[in-house]
């Protein structure tokens, strides 16, 4: 289903990379691999690998310009996480009704 998104974000470094991209300074929406790498104790190929997984999960989009690649957050990338919470928003009111029914059936 949406397992890719959850799997992609389960890795701490990958999540941190995504997080950095999701909160660009001011209005900047796009970052290069080296900008994204700054501050992480991992190699550039490793960062590129993480970005490839994020891209595969639909969380980021890539723009290539010559030898450089730039990344930005995909607008609907976090949709599965939103859906996750939304399912419970729909779930609980109905459960409360069933709880009321049960309380009527219970003794004492």
């Amino acid at each position, binding site marked *: 289903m949406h397992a890719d998104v959850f799997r992609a974000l389960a890795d701490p470094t990958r999540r941190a990379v995504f997080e950095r991209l999701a909160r660009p300074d001011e209005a900047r929406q796009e970052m290069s691999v080296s900008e994204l790498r700054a501050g992480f104790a991992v190699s550039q190929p490793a960062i590129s690998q993480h970005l490839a997984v994020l891209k595969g999960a639909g969380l980021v989009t890539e723009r290539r310009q010559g030898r450089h690649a730039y990344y930005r957050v995909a607008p609907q990338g976090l949709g599965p996480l939103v859906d996750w919470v939304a399912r419970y928003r729909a779930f609980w009111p109905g*459960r*409360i009704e069933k709880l009321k029914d049960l309380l009527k059936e219970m003794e004492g």
Partner: protein
Amino acid sequence: MSAETPKQPNGESVVVECELEAPPEKVWRALSEPALLARWLLPTRAVAPADGALAFDGEAEGLARRIDCRLLDAEPNRRLSYLWREPAGESVVTFELSDSAAGGTWLKVVHGGFTVGGAQARIAPPLPGRRRKAANDNGLILRCAA
């Protein structure tokens, strides 16, 4: 008066409150006894986890086929908190009970703390005052729990 209003106070939890026509002691049993939980919350799976947790089957409700539910915190007749673990990640379901004016129970259900990947990231609203353009249309971001 009963009011069941799903609310979204901060973008990361689901809150439902209502008045129940039963005393807190009785509501407590329905929220804490596995056999009673299975009658209103979700069906329990045949094979229970070894550690005394409950395993629910959420498939019929559009949820995960297996939800492991483990008691986190309990204050009898007042407060009950469950860790809610499913393949997508973990969250916390808390029931708060108080006496209602009509002699029943005021119940507040808070389902929050949605986390992915071993409780290290959570869905959170943008920080107040932070300018954010359309990084994602839904306004949710991940916040790493330091």
